[in-house]
């Protein structure tokens, strides 16, 4: 990647491009794990600094995207570990609705999404992390394994278990 190479050379503009390109996924990865916008923002900034500092450690056999996710997940999990316990949910995040739908369907869709989001937020950190990487980061099993430092088989198993638990949380909501 040209941007990465320029960033490695100390190009400030390249660093800015890197942030612009990856700030949203990095921020969301941190947010889904930490569930706190402030902490996610802190971690996101730290992640980009670490990306610059550790560029020499980047292994090109993996996508840069998954490598940056790895840093984001590790930073977020480290923060949780240092804190010692998980905090209560921060519910002040406003999610955008799909403007292409009519108002009634918008309301249904918004409610459905909100319920799924709530169920996901109530899941364990491990479940949230692996589901986030798969469904929001759209990483493959191998890439998730690289991020979490486990093999693909373990990823497959963790994903299955996480979804099963999520289904259990959403069961009462099946009528929606």
């Amino acid at each position, binding site marked *: 990647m040209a941007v990465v190479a320029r960033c490695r050379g100390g190009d400030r503009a390249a660093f*800015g491009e890197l942030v612009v390109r990856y700030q949203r996924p990095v921020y969301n990865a941190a947010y889904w794990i930490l569930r706190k*916008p402030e*902490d996610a*923002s802190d971690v996101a900034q730290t992640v980009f600094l670490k990306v610059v500092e550790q560029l020499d450690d980047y292994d090109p056999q993996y996508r840069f995207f998954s490598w940056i996710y790895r840093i984001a997940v590790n930073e977020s999990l480290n923060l949780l570990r240092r804190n010692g316990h998980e905090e209560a949910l921060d519910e002040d995040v406003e*999610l955008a609705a799909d403007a292409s739908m009519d108002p009634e369907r918008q309301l249904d869709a918004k409610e459905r*999404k909100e319920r799924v989001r709530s169920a996901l937020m109530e899941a364990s950190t491990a479940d949230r992390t692996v589901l986030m990487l798969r469904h929001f980061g759209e990483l493959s099993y191998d890439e998730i394994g690289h991020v979490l430092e486990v093999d693909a088989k373990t990823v497959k198993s963790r994903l299955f278990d996480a979804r099963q638990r999520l289904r259990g949380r959403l069961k009462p909501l099946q009528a929606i």
Partner: protein
Amino acid sequence: MTKGERRRKMHAVLDGEATPEETREVQALLGSDAQAREEYAELEGLFAALRAVPQAHAPEGLLAAATSLYEQRNQLSTGMGVIGDNRIAGRGASPERSIGRAPAHGERRIHGGVTMSMKTGNRKLWIGGVALAVVAIAVSSRYIEFPGSGDATSGAITPAQRHRAAQPTAADIKLANPGTPVNVQGSLPTPPASAANAAENAAQSNAQGFAQGVAQGRAQGVAQGYAQGVAQGMAQGQAQGVAQGHAQGVAQGMAQGVAQGHAQGLAQGMAQDAAKSSAQGMAHDSAKASAQGMVHDSAKASPQGMAHDSAKASAQGMAHDSAKASA
């Protein structure tokens, strides 16, 4: 295939991670099993719901904050930076301190959706201040020697300056009648009590000794010189001899007498403070005797001897008294 295996393969197919064989098995199952189709449809709904969960936008200030941190890091790495933290969340470089704290009263929100803790900011200031103090102490202990040794000392050492009162000048010296005492010190500032006493004692001693010495010396000198000169002159019959002998005798006698009398007078004056009247009387007598002697003595010898002896005696006496007064 068990129900669990079937479900795992469905997940893999929906994830796009199933092997071709697993994909064929699931397709066959869906074609033949209504319950499997229902189960698969439910899973598809879950996947779709997960994909539909909206993702939050990154905070507006994230780029600026990250760039600021990046520049600070570069400055620090080049040794020219300033320690600081411009994180948009204002939560500090130690995220563990910030996690799990909901926005509370007293916090201000910046960059929309991001909070800053005033308390945490103060704590950071304190920590930063302590860190700076530690750095300053370390730097000072490295480069500044406590206590300083003479090795690293340089510069000029100047003596301490004592206060000096205004000294009498030529304008302060007033001429008066020879018989009238003159205060050459005029209107000098009043010294402290001890200094004043010392000065007074010195003046009295000086005057007393001087007067006594002069009187004795002159009397002896005049008598001795006169007798010798007269004797010589009469013996030689020469007016010149009389004059020379008289002059020599007067000069020698005055010198000896003045010196002896001055030293003696000084000692007496210092021992006895209450000799003022006596000194005045003696001075008066001395002046009288001196005047009388001067009348009789030759005009040549007397001025020389008096000037010499007086200057010598005064200088000695003044030096001695000044040293004492200063001490």
